[in-house]
């Protein structure tokens, strides 16, 4: 397993092995080739390239901050700029550490951008939950009002919710239950929960995935037609 950034998001094992094909013999475009040449140089060329790379990552981090700014009204402009700068700094370290992983499956700048976007997004999620309690117990069942439903539909919805609540309580392990409830029911961001539980995004998503599979299997075993409730059409 490769570590992206131990302070933020650990990279994870695939949830299930899939035959993801490698890009067919990627050939570097001229711009990407130039980036690599400069970043691998052993003179002032490298320092200049690192400065340009940091500016590129800063642009991406500010882009992410700007996208999320409407949801962060309590943060001042200078705080947001600090977060963008920290994200660009951390992304620069990640990019330089993983430079040999770049194979040219995309342009170098696209590859580098994703590190800055990730760092900024993770920092902003954590910042928005700073000081808040992370709810690990179900809070939201009462939201699903059956008001206005026909009696048959109301009974059907009640049966589904009762079966679902029962399955969550009985079929899942305590850890799976906590993770599923926090992430999928209470809307806790995965990076925030990972920090609170001292784990990483990948491990939590694997737990969430396993819990979801258990629930699906259980509900289908009880004869509930999930297609009718979800937007899954075969």
């Amino acid at each position, binding site marked *: *397993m*490769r570590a*992206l950034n131990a302070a933020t*998001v650990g*990279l*994870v*094992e*695939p*949830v*299930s092995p*899939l*035959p*993801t*094909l490698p*890009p067919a013999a990627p050939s570097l475009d001229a711009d990407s080739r130039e980036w690599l040449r400069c970043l691998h140089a052993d003179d002032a060329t490298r320092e200049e390239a690192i400065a340009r790379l940091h500016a590129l990552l800063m642009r*991406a981090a500010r*882009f*992410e901050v700007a*996208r999320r700014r409407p949801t962060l009204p309590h943060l001042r402009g200078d705080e947001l700029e600090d977060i963008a700068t920290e994200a660009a700094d951390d992304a620069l370290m990640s990019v330089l550490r993983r430079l040999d992983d770049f194979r040219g*499956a*995309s*342009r170098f700048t*696209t*590859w580098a*951008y*994703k590190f800055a*976007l*990730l760092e900024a*997004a993770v920092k902003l*999620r954590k910042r928005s939950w700073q000081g808040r309690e992370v709810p690990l117990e179900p809070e*939201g069942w009462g*939201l*699903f009002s059956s008001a206005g*439903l*026909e009696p048959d*539909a109301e009974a059907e*919805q009640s049966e589904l919710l009762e079966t*679902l609540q029962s399955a969550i309580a009985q079929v899942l392990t305590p850890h799976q239950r906590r993770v*599923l409830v926090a992430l*999928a*029911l209470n809307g806790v*961001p*995965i*990076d925030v929960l990972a920090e609170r539980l001292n784990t990483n*995004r*990948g491990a939590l*998503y*694997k737990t*969430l*995935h396993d819990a*979801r599979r258990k*629930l*699906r299997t259980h*509900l289908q075993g009880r004869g509930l037609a*999930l297609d*009718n*409730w*979800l*937007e*899954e059409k075969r």
Partner: protein
Amino acid sequence: MMERPDLKQALGRLLGPAGPEVGCDECFDQLDRYVELELAGQDADAAIPGLRAHLAGCPACREEHESLRALVGGEQAL
């Protein structure tokens, strides 16, 4: 059946995508290639199976996909 969008969305979050999906690690590794294939109008889902399903099931990775696509797509449009 009557539409119950809130319940449908909540169930979607609880039960996740039906098909096989990659994890967050693989998603991050492939995201740049996936976005460029999308922006080039190519079949990104066929090239990288399971990534679209993961984006449906993982809000954090989905947000980062949307950001990368918007950032790179915006630059290409200039």
